[in-house]
């Protein structure tokens, strides 16, 4: 192999390695991101009822934590890395608790 060709191969391998590393880092970054959803649950007006909503949402695969703010009627659902929640899942869970889902917003942590 000529010296010039060897250098070119080396550079290509180096670029390829860097590209793979960047891609891997990107994947890791995406996997550590936690999706957070803010739900508006109508009908929620006492502490004892909040438990039912939290437990129903907590049963969904990928849900890491659920917390309620009773004054605003919002329920914040934080997912495990890489997991997501659909509005349909949220609506069904809130309905199983005996309440009504009015709002569903997604934001990243």
């Amino acid at each position, binding site marked *: 192999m000529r010296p010039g060709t060897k250098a070119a191969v080396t550079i290509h391998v180096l670029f390829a390695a860097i590209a793979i590393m960047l891609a891997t880092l990107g994947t890791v970054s995406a996997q550590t991101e936690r999706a957070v959803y803010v739900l*508006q649950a*109508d*009908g*929620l*007006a*006492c*502490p*004892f*009822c*909040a*438990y*039912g*909503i*939290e*437990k*129903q949402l907590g049963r969904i695969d990928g849900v890491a934590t659920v*917390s*309620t*703010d*009773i*004054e*605003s*009627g919002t329920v914040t659902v934080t997912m495990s890395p890489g997991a997501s929640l659909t509005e349909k899942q949220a609506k069904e869970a809130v*309905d*199983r*608790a*005996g*309440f*009504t889902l*009015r709002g569903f917003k997604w934001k990243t942590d």
Partner: protein
Amino acid sequence: MCRSRILASTGWTISLVFIASAAATAAPQTFNTALPVAEGEFVFREQFLYRKASGDPSRADREVEVLGAISVLGYGMTGDFAGFAVLPYLDKELGLTTASGARITRSTSGIGDARLFGRYTVYRDDAPGRTFRIAPFAGIELPTGDDDDSDGQGSLPATLQLGSGSWDPFGGVVATYQTLDYQIDAQASYKLNTEANGFEFGDEARLDASLQYRLWPRELGPGVPGFLYGVLEGNLLYRGKNEIGGIDDRDSGGTSLFLSPSLQYVTKRWIVEAIVQVPLVQDLNGDALEDDFTVRAGFRLNF
């Protein structure tokens, strides 16, 4: 009043209509609510009670005391339909003066009549921070309590027995309006008592209402703080006359109105509560015993 008559009836119905009433959600303490039990979830409630009745105008000078522990387990079949099981443990004591002038006490204790019922939410109007619901319910009281207990005096009167021996259906409808600041519940119900052992308790109809007002915290902070409610409940109760061998017991049944102040502390997982039921009006038949008061205290758990 002759001795046999005294022993046949306390004139005071110690039935479960008054002590096995409530569901296990955040709710009134003397009757039901229309608030939901989440699907697949359990709620448990234990209520302890002490009830006293005296002031017998007859020479028998009867007095009745009841100590009880009432367990309620609720389960959410769906978000709208819940099933409940109620099992009381009761300790009843009747003191009276016999025709010979002797003062005697008759008592019994054990499991009373259990209740099974279902409640379905037929109307639900949810909005931010408030809800309005209407839920009919229906069930049956089972003859699980001993209905042929006796002591040295012979068989206990039917009204002192732990159970009625009969299968008694009941039903009604409850409505709840709840906001973050207060809650109003109202219920109408009817219990059709049937005959067993030659005795039939009079049917029972009742109207109940409850107002729960959040006393603390005055301002809501973030998250889900515990709520301290001040509660006022009212119960209008009508009982028909009991029948003994197909004949009306003239010293039973009538209409009573109770007013009950209470405190209730509610968190996400548990509730503690206590209430005192005081009779305001008692228009009872014959020498039927009047209630003095009833005290209830207990807790509820979400799990």
